[in-house]
């Protein structure tokens, strides 16, 4: 017996108004803080600037969210998707449009520059009238309202499609945006492929992109169709198919397949920096150094649960140790080769780890965070200080840090450097996995949960904490060493608190205690901003927005470790389990319900 229960109209209405207003507020915000204007320099899709795309993506999002389908709930009749979805999308888009339209009229009549520096006349008053696409304010405001409403309605209409098609449409949109934004990467890869493999790929770039670097109409079509089709095919779970095929093979041929895959991966990896060229390799290198640090901090925070906000100190120690030992200009003046300095980097970082770790042994949680934050600043100030200037060079730092050499060959190009960084990252990832499953990994986990009970189990808390600090410090030290030799000099100002924060944000957004998560987090939060220079000015604004969004909607990160995902969605998982037992309609799993007459259930 199902009951038909519909949400009261007023509740639906207020939700749509709310979404519309939030969208409008975001539109006003990105217009008033200069993002739209700054981004209008770059043409993204044929005839549309990045700024316009940013602005117009708002009604799309708003319409998509507002037009959302009713979730299916057992015992409730679900209204089939229909005209209501685009209608609510349109309404929400319209509300957003009215908001931004009102803002356009406001800044057309009142000069707000005294308060809002980025509300320039070029937004609506003078040419090129960025916000209104060149129209007079009145007509422009009308256009925005109309555009927002139509786009909202369109996005709401996507919700009517069956799941499979809806995902394919989203994929097409995503692919077009990604190819537009990543023009530099795509072009370079196509060019690099032609150079390296002598295959005919470079003309493809000219086909996809205009001379201005925008995705051409033809390019948009091709990419959209490609994304659409791949999503449709992809939903047949190719991985499951591959696995099923592998299952059927004999052991021997399975091993051959595995070796072949590994060889292919190595070959691809070998080619990667060559294909990417020097600029993109450099981006990867920067990301790689951060990845090294993130993997290290992941051990300290993710595994051992010690919130260290002064992590940059170890990065600095690694960099300065390398500089001191390899630069002929440093106070030591020994000018060793890089590899000779590495053991000392390990040593210095480990000592630094001990120095920070020992005094904070008895501290927990927020106290630890504050104290380590202090340590990070102290480290920077020490390197900067006049007192230690004879050793570390004060604000002038240390220059002429030695290059890495492999045999007689110096590692100078970003492409060559990539391999070195890759080896270190691989080492760090391996260490992470090994530690995770080790005794000490278990001890960290138990300590994170309940320090005093872990002690009663025989865990030596002092050793466990210090070893976490030391492992983390050594990985950051490696990062610092690579950083110093890559840049060729070290200055104290490179080692500010922003580095610590960035690394922490990477692991939180990526997924704490998950190596794939940390890798993805680094690529998105460190790699992407290097590629999308337009965003540089707004980097921390975007970090902040992303953090808030993640904490609200996906606190376990993009690619969470299984453990964390379960922790944070305990209720939902419990519910899903319950629903599953309901679905099958059969008897619940043994043990999940008391059976009549059995021993009473512990409750």
């Amino acid at each position, binding site marked *: 017996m199902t009951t038909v229960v519909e949400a009261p109209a007023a509740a639906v209405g207020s939700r749509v108004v709310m979404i519309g207003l939030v969208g409008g507020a975001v539109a006003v915000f990105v217009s008033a803080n200069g993002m739209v204007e700054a981004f209008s320099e770059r043409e993204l899709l044929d005839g549309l600037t990045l700024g316009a795309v940013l602005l117009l993506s708002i009604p799309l999002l708003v319409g998509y969210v507002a037009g959302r389908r009713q979730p299916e709930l057992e015992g409730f009749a679900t209204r089939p998707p229909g005209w209501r979805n685009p209608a609510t999308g349109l309404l929400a888009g319209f509300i957003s449009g009215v908001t931004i339209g009102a803002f356009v009229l406001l800044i057309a009549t009142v000069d707000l520059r005294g308060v809002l520096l980025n509300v320039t006349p070029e937004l609506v008053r003078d040419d090129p009238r960025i916000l209104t696409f060149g129209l007079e304010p009145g007509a422009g405001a009308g256009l925005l309202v109309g555009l927002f409403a139509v786009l909202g309605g369109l996005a709401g209409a996507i919700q009517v499609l069956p799941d499979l098609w809806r995902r394919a449409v989203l994929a097409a949109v995503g692919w077009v945006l990604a190819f537009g934004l990543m023009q530099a990467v795509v072009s370079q890869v196509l060019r690099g492929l032609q150079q390296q493999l002598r295959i005919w790929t470079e003309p493809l770039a000219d086909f996809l992109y205009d001379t201005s670097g925008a995705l051409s109409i033809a390019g948009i079509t091709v990419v959209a169709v490609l994304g659409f089709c791949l999503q449709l095919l992809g939903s047949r779970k190719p991985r499951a198919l591959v696995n099923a095929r592998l299952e059927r093979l004999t052991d021997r041929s399975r091993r051959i397949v595995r070796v072949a895959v590994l060889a292919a991966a190595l070959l691809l990896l070998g080619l990667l920096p060559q294909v990417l060229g020097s600029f993109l390799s450099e981006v990867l290198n920067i990301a790689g150094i951060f990845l090294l640090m993130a993997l290290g901090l992941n051990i300290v925070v993710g595994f051992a649960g010690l919130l260290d906000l002064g992590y940059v100190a170890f990065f600095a120690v690694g960099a300065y140790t390398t500089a001191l030992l390899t630069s002929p200009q440093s106070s030591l003046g020994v000018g060793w080769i890089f590899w000779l300095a590495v053991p000392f980097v390990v040593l210095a970082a480990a000592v630094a780890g001990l120095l920070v770790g020992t005094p904070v042994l008895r501290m927990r949680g927020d106290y630890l965070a504050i104290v380590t934050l202090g340590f990070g600043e102290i480290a920077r100030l020490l390197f900067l200080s006049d007192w230690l200037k004879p050793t570390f060079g004060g604000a002038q730092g240390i220059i002429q840090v030695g290059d890495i050499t492999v045999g007689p060959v110096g590692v100078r190009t970003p492409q060559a450097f990539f391999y070195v960084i890759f080896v270190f990252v691989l080492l760090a990832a391996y260490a992470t996995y090994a530690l995770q499953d080790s*005794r000490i990994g*278990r*001890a960290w*986990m*138990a300590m994170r*949960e*309940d320090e*005093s*009970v*872990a*002690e*009663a*189990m*025989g*865990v*030596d*808390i002092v050793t466990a904490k210090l070893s976490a600090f030391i492992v983390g410090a050594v990985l950051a030290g490696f990062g610092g060493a690579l950083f110093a030799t890559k840049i060729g000099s070290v200055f104290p100002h490179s080692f500010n608190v922003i580095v610590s924060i960035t690394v922490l944000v990477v692991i939180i957004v990526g997924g704490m205690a998950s190596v794939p998560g940390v890798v993805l987090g680094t690529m998105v939060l460190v790699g992407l901003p290097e590629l999308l220079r337009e965003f540089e000015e707004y980097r921390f604004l975007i970090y902040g927005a992303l953090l808030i969004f993640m904490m609200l909607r996906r606190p376990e990160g993009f690619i969470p470790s299984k*453990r964390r995902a*379960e*922790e944070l969605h*305990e209720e939902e998982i*419990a519910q899903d389990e319950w629903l599953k037992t309901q679905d099958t309609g059969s008897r619940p799993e*043994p*043990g999940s319900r008391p059976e009549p007459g059995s*021993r*009473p*259930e*512990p*409750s």
Partner: protein
Amino acid sequence: MTDPQPLLSLRGVSTHYGAIQVLRDIDLEIHAGEVVCLLGGNASGKTTMLKTILGYVVPTRGEVLLDGRRITGLPTQRLVGLGVSMVPENRRLFKRMTVRENLEMGCYLRNDSEEVAKDFERVFALFPRVRQRFGQRAGTLSGGEQQMVAMARALMARPKVLLMDEPSMGLAPVLVEQNFEIIREINEQGTTVFVVEQNATMALSIADRGYVLQTGRIVLSGTAESLLSDQRMRTAYLGEL
């Protein structure tokens, strides 16, 4: 009490938190093979006594002896290796770890994997539900199940003496009874048990001997039968329940 040397004993132990004295001149003995209970009302210092034995707090006077050896002031993590393990107040499982991982933490210091495997079987036999819940996260277990896992975890260290802090706390009466049944079984398998309880009737029903603690001082002690029939016990303590 055939063995003249007690397995675990406290001699003239006083413990302070800051300037406040919580334990006053405690003398207490636990012999190998016994079940001894410590009874006392709220805030009488029961948990503090266990903390003192385990080295979480260091007594200001007196000493704790294990097998005649002074263990006062030893760091907590050393005690499990010497044969003392504990089921803490409110179980305190590692909530985000699985039942299996909790038990593995219980034998964290042990290297004898074959014997550990035997002990897994032993706790499964004592607590069949623990086997059923082996892969589940401890935090999602019911209270009764958590109590079982906490006991199983402590047993995985194969202790000489098992310290239990209010195992009946927060459990339904029928479960409490089951629980004490199992405690007796554990004892029959050769583990000495020191159980701290407010539930005097229940504790005395399985204990050989008992001590009664009142504001940090031992006011009564004796065999379980003598305590159950002791008039002072009846009025001062049992009546209070």
